[in-house]
């Protein structure tokens, strides 16, 4: 029985997000060491501020400056910091109601241990040395037993020089990808320069590449069937735009190819023939390059073209 393959997979997005007027004022304010909230319809000051009322969904615009000190409303001790979190030493996650605010903000609290943390404790913002207009401009909170409560916020116009209008939020997730039994078998076949499809036990169709199930019958494909290596171009397109990181001169032809014995066409590049001479019915074979995991491209075999009726069901 074949071994199931795995491979590292990194999914990474540098999300660029635009800000509404309230978010822009808040994040620009953080850059300037000023914390802004927004007054909700019920009179509460919401920090961090939102563009729309959490209860009524009304648009909110009345900004209020609150204090950089506040009170912990709940906390959780994080004994081992994980990637991307605000501190790389053990710390407490905290919800903090800043003085002048009626709701709480999530962040990290730098504390020596869980015994030094409790709900109700007084804390203050520790500002990041370099601030760009992001929630991480707050490096974390730190204990501030001496900080007297400052009960009320004060109105703020929300205007700053050079306001932040967007953020870039990188997101990276690391996976160990496992394609499962069927696709592992397919990939292992390719390593031996074989294209191995799988046959549906019900309708007898051979799928290439196999995905584990027959989409018509909804049952597992199991019987392995080597197909090709030769096949027929069923349809094609001419690519005129060069793809990034792809070292192929344009124009070139990308085609659907029905390998002999397969009931589903796969797709690949056609080479070894001028692009304007590729045609439906052209007979082709794979070209392997040294160390490649799949055919580099397909080229004409020189056989007569296939009869249309022989591949029309596969277009």
């Amino acid at each position, binding site marked *: 029985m074949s071994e*199931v393959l*795995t491979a590292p*997979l990194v*999914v990474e997005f540098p*999300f660029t*997000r635009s800000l509404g007027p309230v*978010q822009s004022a808040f*994040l620009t304010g953080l850059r300037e060491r000023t914390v802004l909230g927004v007054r909700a319809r019920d009179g509460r000051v*919401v*920090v*961090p501020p*939102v563009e729309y009322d*959490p*209860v009524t969904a009304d648009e909110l615009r009345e900004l209020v400056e609150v204090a950089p000190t506040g009170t912990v*409303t*709940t*906390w*959780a*001790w*994080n*004994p081992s910091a*994980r*990637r*991307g*979190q*605000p501190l790389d030493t053990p710390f407490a*996650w*905290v*919800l903090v*109601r800043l003085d002048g605010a009626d*709701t*709480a*903000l*999530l962040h990290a609290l730098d504390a020596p241990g*869980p015994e030094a943390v409790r*709900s109700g404790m007084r804390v203050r913002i520790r500002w990041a040395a370099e601030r760009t207009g992001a*929630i*991480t401009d707050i490096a974390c909170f730190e204990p501030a037993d001496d900080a007297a409560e400052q009960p009320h916020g004060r109105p703020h116009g929300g205007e700053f020089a050079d306001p932040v209008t967007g*953020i870039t*939020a990188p*997101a990276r*997730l*690391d*996976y*160990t*990808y*496992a*394609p*499962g*039994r*069927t696709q592992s078998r397919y990939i292992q076949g390719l390593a031996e320069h074989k294209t191995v499809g799988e046959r549906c036990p019900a309708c007898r169709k051979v799928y290439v590449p196999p*995905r*584990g*199930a*027959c*989409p*018509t*019958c*909804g*049952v597992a494909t199991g019987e392995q069937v080597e197909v090709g290596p030769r096949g027929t171009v069923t349809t094609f397109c001419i690519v005129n735009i060069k793809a990034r990181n792809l070292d192929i001169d344009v124009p070139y032809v990308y085609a659907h190819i029905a390998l002999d014995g397969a009931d589903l066409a796969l797709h690949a590049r056609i080479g070894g023939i001028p692009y304007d001479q590729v045609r439906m019915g052209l007979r082709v074979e794979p070209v392997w390059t040294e160390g490649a995991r799949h055919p580099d491209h397909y080229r004409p075999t020189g056989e007569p073209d296939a009869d249309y009726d022989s591949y029309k069901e596969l277009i």
Partner: protein
Amino acid sequence: MSEPARGPVRDVAIVAFGQSEHVPDSAETSEVEMLMPVLHDVLARTGLKARDIDFTCSGSSDYLAGRAFSFTMALDGVGAWPPISESHVEMDGAWALYEAWVKILTGEADTALVYAYGKSSPGDLREVLTRQLDPYYVAPLWPDSVALAALQAQALIDAGHTDARELATIGAHRRGRPDAAPGRQVVGPLRTGDCPPVVDGAAAVVLAAGDTARRLADRPAWIRGLDHRIEAHALGVRDLTDSPSTRLAAEHAGAFDAPVDVAELHAPFTSQEVVLRRALRLDAPGSTVRINPSGGALAANPVMAAGLIRLGEAAAAVQRGDADRALAHATSGPCLQQNLVAVLEGER
């Protein structure tokens, strides 16, 4: 309350439920390979073929396994070609069931296949779930799912609604090991015993209307009410010790009209079971309700399927005759942000 909850316009029942084994690592199987046996099982229970199903709806998230459009490949397992009437939600399958239920209520379908699957093993689930958070103020801090649940648990303890001992007891009982130790601290106050196991798995149910349901099952589990509600997005705006959205969904589903025999609660963390029991008034004096006889999400928590499994387990209890009236609950998002409640009954 405004007007009393009314019954649905059509009688719709869960007539079959199936689930996979839930395993810590399913590298042997792709999503469709994991799902297909469950689909075959649930269809076999009704005698229906895939082609007999009027509407198919699924729930899953590509972020779990990092596999783009995995739901389209999962559809191969249904036999979706030539094209069938189908839909997908990037949510727990409980919400796919909601969509299928509405579809049947409109009269456009008499039967529906609902399935859900989750493969958490390829990634780091605690990190993956941070990507569902507010991208401006919260996600850049990467607070993981256990940390957020721990903030809720501490708030509950501070409010006097529970303590570490009660949480440990819940965790041990749901796993069927009443003497188990609570384990090491993950994010305090939560210990390993308070947190759900990370597993891969799949589940499916078949819905049917009226006489079709009676024909397909000896004792259909009739959906008497089904509703879902959501709370504010920002954690700091919410009262984490309460679940007003669960309570509101339960009111609209008619859950408070009569006592239930069984309640299947989708509480991945022990502390969340405390919140839900309070919101659903399951701990009232004299209550005889059996809570999570299946073990709930603390026993097996295949993300994206665990909510649908609560509906399936509650329906199975009705179908077996273990319950005449059952409540099922599903949740989505951090700290019980969104909640769905269903009331299921056997034929009277």
